[in-house]
Structure formats: structure tokens, C-alpha cells
């Protein structure tokens, strides 16, 4: 097959989603954000929701998410994305409204907004990137930093008497009456990416169908913050993060098939 033949449209097997623009991403090579951004853009396109999506970006590494996905965005103050999304969804009930937040944003400074928006059953989807570290500010301790893990603000490792324990906000969310779908995924392998895509799609459909609040945690790597190569970071995540943050659905009151 010649190069020209390969480039013919009928031979196309993969293309970048149209909503994902050409702005070079600021994310570090190996970071999970890029993959999740691509999934989000793909899903919005597949659902045909380009004109009726309002996304809410956080403070943290994903603060610039609005530079990469061509939908309307509101950039929220640190931790406040679920409150911002609450108003957007209540005022535009036929729109797809989702937040995209990191562990510090969602499970630390914004814990109150997260829990209350989820518990009110706001018809929003929350995408929660948990990489157990503050990436944007240079690798400080996060609410989800594992015991013993070293960061810039727990340089000798996280210990309970100094730093307390990692918070499993996703487990808490599963206990709330207002949530309809709570799941924990990852994007470290092709199989995992496929599962994560299904989960995000389900969360988005729940938002549109007014079924309640959905939370999709993506256990992610921060190879720059963890000071590991992308490959080693994936391996470290599998060996350490998945034990404490096991993958899978924690709650699903929307039977499979009903949302499709």
C-alpha cells in the first residue's frame, strides 16, 4: 500500500476529535489529563452535544482545559466548580453540564461544594482526576496522597500524626442519596481507556436525562510530580494507587442498557 492509498478517507481508522483543537497542551508528557480530555471531546461529539454543553474548569493543572476543548467554558474559583455547575444546570436544564476537577480542587478546598452538589442530586457529571499530588503548584501533598508517599510538603513521607489520612471522596459520594452513578476508572491501558470512556459517557447521559449526580474518578499519574518516567509512573500507580483506590463501579442505580 502506498502512502497516498493509506491516506485515503476510507482507510482512516483513527482521527483526533474535532472538538479537540490544535492548541499545544501544557500537560507534561505521560500525564493522564491529555487522554481524559480526548475522551471528553469524543463523547460530546458522539452525543451531538457541541451546542448544548457548558463545561466548568477548576483551579489546578486542568485550569486551562478551556484552551483545548472547543465548547463553552466557565472557569471556577478553586473548589467551587460544583456550585458553578449547579446554577448552570438548573438554569439550562436541557444542557450537558460537567465539571472537570483535580483532587485538591474537589476533595480538599472544594469538599463542601462537592458533597453538597452531589447530595442535592444536581444533574451534573463530575470528572475527578486523582493523581494524589498537587501538580500545578509543583508537587505538594494532596488530600489523596497515599500514606508514606513523599511530596514537597511531606518530604519524609505522609504520616498520620503529622498529615492525617488520605480522603476517599468517591467512597463518600457513593453513600449520598443524590448520586446515581459513582465509579472509579483509570486511563493507563487501552482496556482501561475504553472502560473510562464508557463511564464518562454514562455520566454525561445521566446529566442529560436528569437522573442525579454522577462522579467519575480517574486514578491518574503525575509522572512529573511523582518524579518517575511515564512508564514507571503507570507501574507505580498499578502497584500502589490501585490498592488504596480500587477500580470499578461503587454505585450505579441506572441499569446498563437503560441509558443507551
Amino acid at each position: 500500500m502506498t502512502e497516498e492509498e493509506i491516506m485515503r478517507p476510507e482507510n482512516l481508522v483513527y482521527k483526533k476529535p474535532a472538538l479537540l483543537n490544535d492548541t499545544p497542551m501544557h500537560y507534561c508528557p505521560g500525564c493522564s489529563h491529555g487522554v481524559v480530555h480526548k475522551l471528553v471531546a469524543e463523547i460530546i461529539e458522539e452525543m451531538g452535544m457541541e451546542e448544548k454543553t457548558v463545561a466548568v474548569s477548576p483551579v489546578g493543572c486542568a485550569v486551562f482545559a478551556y484552551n483545548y476543548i472547543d465548547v463553552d467554558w466557565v472557569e471556577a474559583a478553586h473548589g467551587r466548580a460544583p456550585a458553578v455547575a449547579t446554577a448552570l444546570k438548573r438554569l439550562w436544564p436541557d444542557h450537558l453540564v460537567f465539571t472537570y476537577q483535580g483532587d485538591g480542587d474537589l476533595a480538599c478546598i472544594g469538599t463542601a461544594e462537592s458533597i453538597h452538589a452531589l447530595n442535592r442530586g444536581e444533574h451534573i457529571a463530575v470528572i475527578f482526576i486523582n493523581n494524589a499530588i498537587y501538580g500545578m503548584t509543583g508537587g505538594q501533598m494532596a488530600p489523596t496522597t497515599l500514606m508514606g508517599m513523599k511530596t514537597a510538603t511531606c518530604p519524609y513521607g505522609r504520616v498520620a500524626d503529622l498529615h492525617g489520612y488520605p480522603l476517599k471522596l468517591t467512597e463518600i459520594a457513593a453513600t449520598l442519596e443524590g448520586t446515581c452513578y459513582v465509579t472509579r476508572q483509570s486511563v493507563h491501558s487501552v482496556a482501561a481507556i475504553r472502560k473510562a470512556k464508557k463511564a464518562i459517557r454514562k455520566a454525561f447521559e445521566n446529566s442529560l436525562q436528569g437522573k442525579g449526580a454522577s462522579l467519575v474518578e480517574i486514578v491518574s499519574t503525575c509522572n512529573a510530580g511523582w518524579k518517575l518516567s511515564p512508564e514507571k509512573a503507570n507501574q507505580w500507580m498499578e502497584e500502589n494507587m490501585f490498592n488504596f483506590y480500587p477500580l470499578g463501579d461503587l454505585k450505579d442505580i441506572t441499569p446498563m442498557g437503560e441509558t443507551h
Partner: protein
Amino acid sequence: MKGNEAIAHAAIRCGCDGYFGYPITPQSEVLETLALEKPWETTGMVVLQAESEVASINMVYGGGASGKRCMTSSSSPGVALMQEGIAYMAGAEIPGLIVNVQRGGPGLGTIQPSQSDYFQATRGGGNGDYNVIVLAPDSVQEMADFVDLAFDLAFRYRNPVMILSDGIIGQMMEKLVLPPFKPRRTEAQILEECPWAASGRKAGRKPNVLTSLELDSAVMEQKNLHLQAKYAAIREKEVRFETMQCDDAEYLIVAFGSAARIGLKVIEMCREEGIRAGLLRPITLWPFPSQEVARLARRVKGILSFEINAGQMVEDIRLATGGKTPVAHYGRMGGVVPAPDEVIRALKEELINSHCHES
């Protein structure tokens, strides 16, 4: 009805799309009245009790970012919590209305009325170089009238607007004429009037992104210059005030909100005693009626700033007079409301009988 109830009824009648609030004395009647009126069944207005004032203001931020007319109300400690959100609204140029029914501070302070949030309201209140348009009602009627005015100003300038009231006006019952009913804007009208809003990217246009963030300092400076030009236009066009018996006045009382009502009695009692006093009531606290203060300052022997606080607006009066006219302050704190005779005593001691006229 009460001033707080007037705010709620006016919101329903002037096409407000969303109210988000958290209970705090002395303004809880705003949310209570809305809950009782159930406007979601009539106009479609969203009413939500949020988990905190922090959440409330960020709901106003989100709703305003999508072009909807959204508001919150609170009292001093709650408005202190909202300052982050208000600064973000100013930075991202998101319109919205914040009602502050003030109580005495600092901290938890008291539930009794006060005007001690003047600095916070007129100096921005949060971080960065910005201003909030501040309207100061002195009656239940103005509580109602200023809601629609506040929304109009907020959307004309894409800026947060504050109604700075206090526990007296909020709790006081007066007769009023409610504003005429105005329907909420349709989604088509919002799309037309707010092409900047994040309400879903229509085909053919670039995404709308509402943010206060910009890491390139040159671009951020341009953004600030744009904001400053906007504030200059607001200073130019939106100053509002009222004067009473100022034409022949030898002494000028400057007072806003509930203090202006006491001030009215003060000038009446002064004139009975033969003291020619006039009253200037700033209606916009920002922009402050500096030119009118300066104009009157040239004609009077002294100015008394009468505020229910330790002396805050007096600084704006001194800036406006440039030290050329004696300026004094009288006020009470902690929720104590001064009586007219105290104010007259202060006027005499500080200005009329004072031999060292210092500004």
C-alpha cells in the same frame, strides 16, 4: 411589607432567573419570601438554598456567566465570605446582584444594623484592582426599585452590582408600590443580548470562555486597562445622589441609607434652631458623588459625614473636598442607631463651635 420582602417580590417581578442564598440574620426573609412565593411555578425563576455563602456567590457566578439574571443576598459576615466570588465576577466580567443587609462587626459582631461595610463594598472587597457598583437604598420602596436597576447596570457593564442596605431598611415595614411585572428574558433574547455568555457554543462561533485568569502579564495588564476604562465610564455616567435643602445651606450633612433618614430629621431640627443645614444623600456609593460634594463644599462652612460606623465614607468626602472645607464625622457602632439630637450635638461641637477648622 419589610424591606427584605420587597427585595424578594421585586426579584420575581423584574425577570430574575435565579436566586441563591444562605440564611443569615437580618436578611433571611429574602429567601423565606421566595420559598413561600414559589416563583419556579410562575416565572420559572430558580430559587436555591445553598450550603454556604461561598457556594451562593459561585452559583451567581455560574448563572451570570451563562447570561442569566442571578442574585444572592446576605448580611455582613456572609458577604465577607463572598468576596472571592465577587472578585472573580469582576475579573471575568460576569454580571450579578449581591444584596448586603448590613449588621455590625467585626467578625460575627451583632445582628443589629450597621453601615460598617462601606469600605468593603466601595473598595472592591476582594483581591485585585476592581470596583463593584454600589447602590444604597433608604426606604423599602428603593429596596424594590433598585433590584431591576441593579440588574440593568450589571448587564450594561458586565460587572457585579451590590445593593448595600442595612438591618434597619431590611426589617422596617413601609408601604410601597411594587415594580411592574417584567417577564424573564427568553433564551433567544439572552443569546442576542449576551453574545459573550457561556450557554452552549452555537455552530460558527468560537467557544465562549468566562475566566479571570491570564498568565501573560502583558495581556493581563491590557485586561486591567480595559476594566479601568470601564470603571471610568461608570464614574462618568452612573453617579446618583439626592440633595435636600442644600441651596442655602451653611452646613452640609452627608449620609446614605438609613442614616440619611435620620439626617432628614437632623436638617429639619437644625432649621428650627436657625442652623441652615442641608443633606446630601449619595445613592451610588461607588461611583461616589465626588463632584457634587466638591461643588457644595465650596459653598458651605463645614461638612458632617454621618454614618452608622466609625467613619468610612468620610474619607471619600475628604478626597472630594481636597482639604479645603472642614470635614467631620459622627457615627455609632455595634448596632447602636444614633438619634438626631446626637448628630446635631456633633455638628455643633465639631463644626459650628469649633475654632480650629481642620479637615
